[in-house]
């Protein structure tokens, strides 16, 4: 699973990465987690509110730290 977290380096972006990493480890799911910090690259997904989360090329979240439940649903129940 290829996961990108879009954001220019704010605390919420860092917390989002940490949460996804934590949930992935807890579930034993292998993910490729990547930060996307360049504005041009972020806007390439059309995301105005960060953090944004892109899974396998699809934007699944934009704006604010996602809930743990939401992250768990992305990574499989």
């Amino acid at each position, binding site marked *: 699973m290829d996961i990108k977290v879009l954001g220019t380096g704010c605390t919420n972006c860092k917390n989002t990465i940490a949460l996804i990493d934590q949930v992935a480890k807890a579930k034993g799911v292998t993910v490729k987690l990547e930060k996307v910090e360049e*504005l041009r690259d972020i806007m390439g997904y059309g995301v105005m509110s960060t953090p944004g989360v892109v899974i396998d090329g699809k934007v699944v979240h934009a704006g604010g730290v996602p809930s743990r439940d939401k992250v768990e649903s992305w990574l499989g129940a």
Partner: protein
Amino acid sequence: MLEEAKEVCPTTTRRLLGEGAILMDVRDRSEVTAFAFDVPDVVNIPLSELEQRCSEVPRDRPVVFVCDTGVRSLKATYFLQFHGYTNVSNMGGGVVKWSAKGFPVKGQRAADSCSTGCCSPTEGTTTTSCC
């Protein structure tokens, strides 16, 4: 990947306005009320409303995005590029640089008008300006 945003300076922006471009100010209303571009062809769509109102941005004339210092307007420029606009550019330096050039403004800029981290240098742009 999006093409690098085209960046223009205030002087070029003035020329573009004379040639039919529109100035799109993405600052908040309170900022615009306090300190505004004094030109006829300026429209205010705050960045926070751009997603909902991007259909109001004309496709049939050049659009120059502006803000306080050019950071929020760069985001707006890329957002419109994402939606297929090709004739959009960002005015680097924003209203601060515009007024420093002695170009027409109304009101006075509040000292703390940049409270949202918008004052970092503009990055990721192609500068085609003459300044």
